[in-house]
Structures are given as structure tokens and as C-alpha cells.
């Protein structure tokens, strides 16, 4: 029987690969060290699949058809979409059987993700993978959540979707690592670009550390919005926490980096 053998919350600030020299070297080093620990942990666990919950950055979805949740059910996925990211283009294997099980289990539970046979992975997925599964040889199920355009799925629903993902995994043979990708606070391309809401970030990391994901699942849209238009991505952490249950977490690293316009956080459950 399958299981969620580990779960991580990982920031995906594209500066890490696109313009690493813009930030203080000690911050970059600390982040590399944290991601190296995650990589080592994943390599030791040898998971059959990585389920990664990430946002779309106007690459796959537009206002013509904006899904709250979308599961990638393809055999493989191309990425990254961005020429400027500093990550080589590649193709990552999917896990259609597990992906379809995630969709079916959700449907039975009254959660209706869209599904896609053709996602192009952007930095929200490819940047974490580049660091924690750099050979790109572990199959991936990408799960996209709308963190761009309100109205977005409420926190309590992200949490419930995560719980449903865990149930799907339990019914499957795979041993799975889960990643929630995004945040923490940022306002990319907005007037407030570069601002960081440390108080908001520290409160969230405290709840993550203490295994209080359920408290995050009660956050309102307004509370989530305190982290900015990019902080909407907190939803991906909440879904990951729903799947991981209320295990306490290790906050491996937390660095507010104005040059990357966000507080970078890395947590292991």
C-alpha cells in the first residue's frame, strides 16, 4: 500500500536560477544548503513518484478557462516554459495511473479538479524539481491550483483536496513524496514588488512547524491576501498540509530576500 512518505513546502523564487548573483551570497548559500538537504532526503527515500502542487504563472491557463484545481494526467511533461529561467529544457515522466486515481478519488469526495493531458511545467514546478530531483528521473504528478485570478479555491477546500490526494495515494502502490510549491509573501510585477510581510510569514511558519495546518485551512481569502498577489500561493502549502496530516514540520530554512522579492521558506514534514 502506498503512502505519503515525506512532504515539503518549498519556495520557488525564480531569481535562484535566473539571477542568483542579485542576492547576498550568504542567503543563496543557505537556500542551496536547505534544498540540498531536501534532495538528500528524497534520494534516500527513493520515492516512486513526486506529487507537486504548484500555481500556474499564465503559461497553461488563461481567463478563457480558469480552473481552481487541475491535475496533469499525461505520460510526460515538457518544461520549463521560461527561456530565461536558467534551467535546461527537458521532459519529465508523469504517472497517469496515480494522476487519474487522484482525480477519481476527488470526484467521489465532491471535489472536481480539471484534468490535463498537456501541461507545460513552469518555474513553479521546475525550479523545485531542478534542486531536489535534478536528474528529473522520478515521475511527477503536477497538480495546479489557481493562485492567479480571483475567485480562488478557499483554504478549507485546498486542505480537503490535500486530504483526498492522500487517500488516493493510500489506495495506490506508489510511495510518494509531496511538494507544496510557492510563497511566501510577494507581489511580483506589482507596485509593491520587493515588499516582504515578515510578520505574516513568521506566523505561517510557526503554524507549519507546530503541525497546525488545520488552522491555516481556516484562513480567509483576506488573511491569505496579506502575503500579496504572490502570497496567494500559500494555497499550495495548505493542500500539501492537508495531504501530510498534522505532523509537525522542521523549518529547514527561512530567509527574507528582498533581491528575490520574497521570503524564502523550506519546510520538511
Amino acid at each position, binding site marked *: 500500500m502506498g503512502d505519503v512518505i515525506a512532504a515539503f513546502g518549498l519556495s520557488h523564487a525564480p531569481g535562484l536560477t535566473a539571477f542568483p548573483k542579485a542576492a547576498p551570497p550568504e542567503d543563496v548559500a543557505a537556500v542551496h544548503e536547505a534544498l540540498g538537504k531536501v534532495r538528500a532526503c528524497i534520494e534516500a527515500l527513493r520515492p516512486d513518484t513526486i506529487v507537486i502542487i504548484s500555481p500556474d504563472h499564465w503559461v497553461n491557463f*488563461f481567463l478563457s478557462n480558469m480552473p481552481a484545481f487541475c491535475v496533469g494526467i499525461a505520460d510526460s511533461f515538457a518544461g520549463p516554459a521560461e527561456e530565461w529561467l536558467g534551467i535546461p529544457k527537458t521532459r519529465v515522466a508523469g504517472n497517469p495511473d496515480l494522476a487519474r486515481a487522484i482525480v477519481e478519488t476527488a470526484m467521489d469526495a465532491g471535489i472536481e479538479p480539471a484534468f490535463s493531458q498537456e501541461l507545460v511545467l513552469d518555474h513553479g514546478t521546475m525550479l523545485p524539481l531542478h534542486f531536489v530531483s535534478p536528474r528529473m528521473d522520478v515521475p511527477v504528478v503536477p497538480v495546479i491550483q489557481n493562485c492567479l485570478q480571483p475567485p480562488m479555491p478557499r483554504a478549507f477546500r485546498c486542505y480537503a483536496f490535500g486530504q483526498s490526494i492522500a487517500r488516493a495515494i493510500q489506495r495506490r502502490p506508489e510511495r510518494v513524496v509531496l511538494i507544496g510549491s510557492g510563497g511566501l509573501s510577494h507581489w511580483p*510585477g*506589482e507596485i509593491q514588488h520587493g515588499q516582504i510581510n515578515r510578520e505574516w510569514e513568521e506566523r505561517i511558519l510557526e503554524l507549519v512547524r507546530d503541525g497546525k495546518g488545520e488552522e491555516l485551512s481556516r484562513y480567509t481569502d483576506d488573511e491569505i491576501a496579506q502575503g500579496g*498577489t504572490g502570497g496567494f500561493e500559500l494555497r499550495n502549502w495548505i493542500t500539501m498540509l492537508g495531504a501530510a496530516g498534522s505532523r509537525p514540520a522542521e523549518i529547514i530554512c527561512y530567509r527574507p530576500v528582498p533581491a528575490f522579492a520574497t521570503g524564502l521558506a523550506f519546510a520538511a514534514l
Partner: protein
Amino acid sequence: MSLYEVQKFLYQFNTDAALRAAFSADPEQVLADRMLTEVERSALRQRDFRALYAMGIHGLLLTPLANYSGVPIPKYLEAIRSGSEETSHDEGAHHG
């Protein structure tokens, strides 16, 4: 009124290399059959980020346009901040 058409053009520009090439070769022609006002056409042609941002376009639809047009992000930020009315987007203004 045609905010959606501006957003759609940017989404396509950002994800379609052929459209980017066509737009840099002949912007008038590329915009000709789109339902855009003259103000919108001109803001796109001139990369008038201040005007585009004030329309309510999402920051992540605009920064790729800046990248592909060779406008550094600090320049882009300077442009969108130059409005006297600092219209923030996080109240949902751009969620048109």
C-alpha cells in the same frame, strides 16, 4: 472596455514565439484584427507599462512583456510606479 482583449494578447505574446516575432516585425498588422481601442493599441506598441498597469493588467502578464522587450525589471517597476495615483492591484482591481 476591451481589457480582456489586452490580457489575451499579452498571454498569447508571452507563450507564443511566432506571435512575438510577428509583433516585432509588424505590430500594426498583428493588432489590426483585434478588438482593441486606439489607446490600448498604442500602449502595447509603445510598451507603456504605466498605462497597461493602470488598466488593471496582472503583474505577471506584464513582466514577460518587459523581459521580451529588453526592459529591465527595475525600469519596469519605475514605470508602473510613476503614476500619481498609486493604484494597487491587491484589492482585486486587476481581477477584471
